[in-house]
């Protein structure tokens, strides 16, 4: 089961998954969960092309454009079709195009193909070349193929595949990708492939709604969400993560809070603080020496005595208030105030960290218990009994795992929400106190119910009589409902009452989902009704996620590029 633990902080939550499926058939108490096809999609190596084509199609159809123009526009607008169309409607075609470097010269001379009977003076190499050895771009600039090829190679190697500009000075036009591919592949087939990969991956890298799955080793997939970046998703490889910051799913903590928390835990900065507050290096041997009692004269095991306030070496002759022959003039009270403050901060951190850790530890233990509990289920199922359905056990287990996570992340949330680091000036002290109090009530209520559920599920129910089992069953189902509602309320409280009233910073939080983290579904795209009939002729009907190689797809790119003209 410990199959994908990466690092200390990322626990194996993949076990949530199996039980999720089980929940489907029972439990009318989860309202409004329409099953199956989620709006979150997995984009695999195979479906990446199809996903990209889908967006290209819509722009090509709506603006009647060639594919490379549509791609240039989409790359410029970071694959945000809606924004692109808004610019189109608000500012018109000309400005939409010129901003993105698409030139719409209605070419008299049909694009790129020049006759071999004429010669052309290439201004780059300053040579005369035959017409068929030169290429005219959409912007009208014409140079010899050798020069274009050199230019493309330099740009691809510079990592600029996505926006290779025309060679003419101050010409903002983006070169036709088909010309680039064609010319470069004649000299460097591998570089042409790299170019294609860059273009393809732009769909992921330049796209706000698509992210690579952060699994290590990388599963090769990307995830596309529909409309909210603040969500938690599960890739088809089983990895669950926060879509917005790509770390483990951490709601109800915001991404910023989580980042700070992880850092704090890693640095153990508080421990370091503690050491600096409570010990001082000996001026002779440099070992840390702990202060002992209220006296400001401390002595090291090496025999050296020194002044606690300034750290300077002294003799041993001293009274409560001064050391003979030593005056350091440090303001004693200030020191002590700092000590007090650091101590308070440390205790506060420890308070939250202990609870956070307790729940994550419980989660790990309970995950291990899962096997045992499921075994109990199978034993029970085989018994001659009128009880056949044990899905309440798996459902209960699932609820337990889910709420454990919510509980553990609620502690770093509270640490920052009600601490001074992030929202010091955002709430009055009274307000903070009231809100914290209410939040802690919710937290404690949730906590006690989760512990009850945990205990119940650990009972050896396989040895019990039917009546007793029925009783446990009822309790588990009831507790599950209560816990689910408490989680939901906690998220709502955070969203509406606590964070909702604060305008500072970006603290989007993935919404609570009763059914747990959304599993992205496989993307399947097929060219259907929306696609123009012209294009249909040249596209395979079984495109989508079938096993076609990229190479095949690119030959189709070519086909429809040349045939879309008409």
């Amino acid at each position, binding site marked *: 089961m410990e199959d994908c633990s990466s690092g200390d902080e990322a626990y194996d939550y993949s076990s949530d998954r199996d039980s999720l499926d089980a929940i489907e058939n029972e439990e009318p108490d989860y309202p409004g969960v329409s099953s199956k096809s989620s709006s979150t999609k997995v984009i695999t190596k195979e479906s990446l092309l199809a996903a990209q084509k889908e967006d290209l199609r819509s722009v090509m159809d709506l603006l009647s454009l060639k594919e490379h123009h549509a791609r240039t526009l989409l790359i410029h607008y970071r694959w945000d079709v809606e924004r692109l169309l808004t610019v189109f409607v608000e500012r018109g075609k000309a400005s939409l195009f010129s901003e993105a470097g698409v030139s719409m010269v209605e070419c008299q001379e049909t694009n790129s193909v020049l006759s071999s009977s004429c010669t052309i003076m290439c*201004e*780059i*190499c*300053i*040579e005369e070349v035959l017409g068929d050895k030169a290429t005219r771009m959409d912007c009208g600039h014409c140079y010899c193929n050798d*020069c274009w090829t*050199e*230019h493309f*190679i*330099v740009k691809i190697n510079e990592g600029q595949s996505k926006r290779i500009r025309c*060679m*003419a*000075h*101050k*010409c903002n036009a983006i070169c036709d990708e088909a010309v680039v591919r064609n010319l470069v592949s004649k000299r460097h087939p591998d570089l042409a492939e790299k170019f294609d990969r860059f273009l393809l991956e732009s769909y992921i890298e330049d796209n706000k709604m698509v992210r690579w799955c952060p699994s290590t080793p990388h599963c090769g997939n990307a995830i596309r969400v529909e409309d909210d970046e603040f969500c938690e998703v599960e890739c088809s490889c089983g990895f669950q993560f926060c879509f917005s910051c790509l770390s483990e799913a951490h709601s109800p903590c915001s991404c910023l809070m989580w980042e700070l928390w992880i850092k704090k835990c890693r640095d153990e900065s508080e421990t370091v603080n503690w050491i600096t507050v409570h010990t001082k290096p000996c001026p002779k041997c440099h070992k840390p020496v702990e202060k002992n009692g209220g006296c400001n004269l401390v002595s090291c095991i090496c025999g050296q005595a020194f002044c606690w306030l300034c750290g300077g070496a002294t003799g041993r002759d001293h009274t409560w208030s001064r050391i003979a022959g030593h005056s350091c003039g440090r303001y004693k009270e200030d020191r002590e105030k700092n000590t007090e403050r650091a101590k308070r901060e440390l205790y506060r951190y420890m308070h939250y960290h202990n609870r956070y850790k307790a729940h994550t530890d419980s989660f790990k233990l309970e995950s291990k218990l899962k096997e045992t509990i499921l075994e109990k289920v199978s034993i029970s199922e085989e018994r001659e009994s009128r009880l056949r359905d044990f899905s309440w056990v798996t459902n209960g287990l699932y609820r337990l795992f889910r709420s454990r996570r919510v509980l553990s992340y609620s502690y770093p949330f509270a640490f920052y929400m009600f601490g001074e680091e992030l929202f010091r000036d955002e709430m009055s002290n009274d307000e903070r106190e009231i809100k914290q109090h209410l939040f802690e009530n919710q937290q404690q209520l949730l906590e006690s119910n989760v512990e009850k559920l945990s205990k119940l599920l650990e009972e050896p129910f396989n040895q019990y009589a039917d009546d007793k089992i029925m009783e446990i069953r009822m309790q588990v189902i009831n507790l599950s409902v209560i816990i689910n509602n408490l989680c939901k309320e906690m998220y709502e409280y955070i969203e509406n009452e606590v964070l909702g009233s604060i305008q500072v910073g970006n603290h989007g939080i993935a919404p609570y989902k009763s059914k747990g983290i959304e599993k992205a579904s496989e993307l399947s795209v097929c060219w259907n009704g929306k696609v123009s009939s012209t294009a249909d002729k040249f596209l395979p009907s079984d495109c989508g996620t079938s096993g076609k190689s990229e190479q095949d797809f690119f030959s189709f790119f070519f086909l429809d590029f040349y045939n879309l003209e008409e």
Partner: protein
Amino acid sequence: MVDFARVQKELQECSRDMEASGIRVSPKSDNLAGLTGTIPGPIGTPYEGGSFEIDITLPDGYPFEPPRMKFVTKVWHPNISSQSGAICLDILKDQWSPALTLKTALVSIQALLSAPEPDDPQDAVVAQQYLRDYQTFVGTARYWTESFAKASSLGVEEKVQRLVEMGFAESLVRSTLEAVGGDENLALERLCSS
């Protein structure tokens, strides 16, 4: 590999209208990857009368990658480092186009001498002075031109005399010296090659 065929053609083209432009490009050695450019300071600027030497290195990808240029002659200008001679000019960086040439690049540098862009400075000290105390800036720039961009402290008459003694006609010597901004060595080179 540098496209040396093109560099050759550029050099020919450049020498053809050197009289008119005053801009010169010549190879440092047989290897065309290292060259020296010379531009006259634009009239009506503190650089007037100076002759500015620019070191040119061609990268392997030339002309698909920009040439590397920096001032050899010390110059006081917001977009040129007074220490290293580095030039801050967009066409020498991301705005380079293979359709540009060494000569057009040098013309752009000459234009930069006429129209500094203190908001995008290479030399912050100079830029500050340009913005806050323009008069002092002009004074310093002119002084630097006098001190570093003029061939020698010799008077023009002495230069004319020495060149005439080498066997060139006096009128030709005078016009040539003028064309190269008073640089005796440049004048001699040009007289010898014409």
